[in-house]
């Protein structure tokens, strides 16, 4: 079963990394919007 767990773990790791990248992108955008509102 180790190959199955490795494959499933890798699949979820890829999805989680992508979601983290999306969250960071959203935070950067929010900072950008705050800067726009301030100036």
């Amino acid at each position, binding site marked *: 079963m180790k190959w199955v767990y490795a494959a499933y773990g890798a699949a979820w790791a890829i999805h989680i990394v*992508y979601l983290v990248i*999306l969250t960071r992108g959203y935070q950067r955008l929010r900072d950008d919007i705050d800067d*726009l509102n301030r100036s």
Partner: protein
Amino acid sequence: MKSTFSILALITLALLSYGLYQAIIVAPREMTMGDAQRIFYYHVPSAWTAFLCFFANLVASIWYLASGDSKADAVALTTAEVGVVFCTVVLVTGPIWAKPIWGIWWTWDARLTSTLVLWLIYVSYLLLRRYSTAGQNPMLASVLAVFGAVDVAFVYMAIRWFRTQHPQPVIGGGQGSGIDPRMMHALLINWCGFLALAFLVIWLRYRLERLRQQVEEAHAMKAIAGAKGASR
């Protein structure tokens, strides 16, 4: 909107959990490949989901080429990105299956090579979108997306047209193909789960992209206003 998203997120979580249970506990052990065959329940649905994302990218790209609508451009970018994520899962889980079954991680057969080319085409698409500063950027990317869609068809047909080391199709593969109903159930439940996940992520990414377009527009308006103020 938030409650719809939460309901959909819960349905996705339920489908993926049930799919995992079906894949690991309920689906029978395959006789020749053993437990490693269970990788199939993540590998195949991820491939189908990636194909659907790339097909949606093709439709949105053609829509953009015909109308120049920025919404179409956002859909195209979003579906390509999520398609690449699912295609990456396919390219990672495939070799993890291949090692115990074939004894090698990778071979340059038609299915594997065309899938790698497909991934490279859409990664190029995303890099073009990300780093090119030319005004024609979305237009060029849309044309590249059309070429990518041709490769999707090639990847799908590769195991039907060529004698490949990759297993022959077990679904829609003609006479002699087919799998145990419990395996099919696990496969379809996981596909539903991954489709729901893809839909959720595309939804999130689309909203993010529309917001980014609005911020970019606001920056441009601010720069124009600044230039006008300076010239007075």
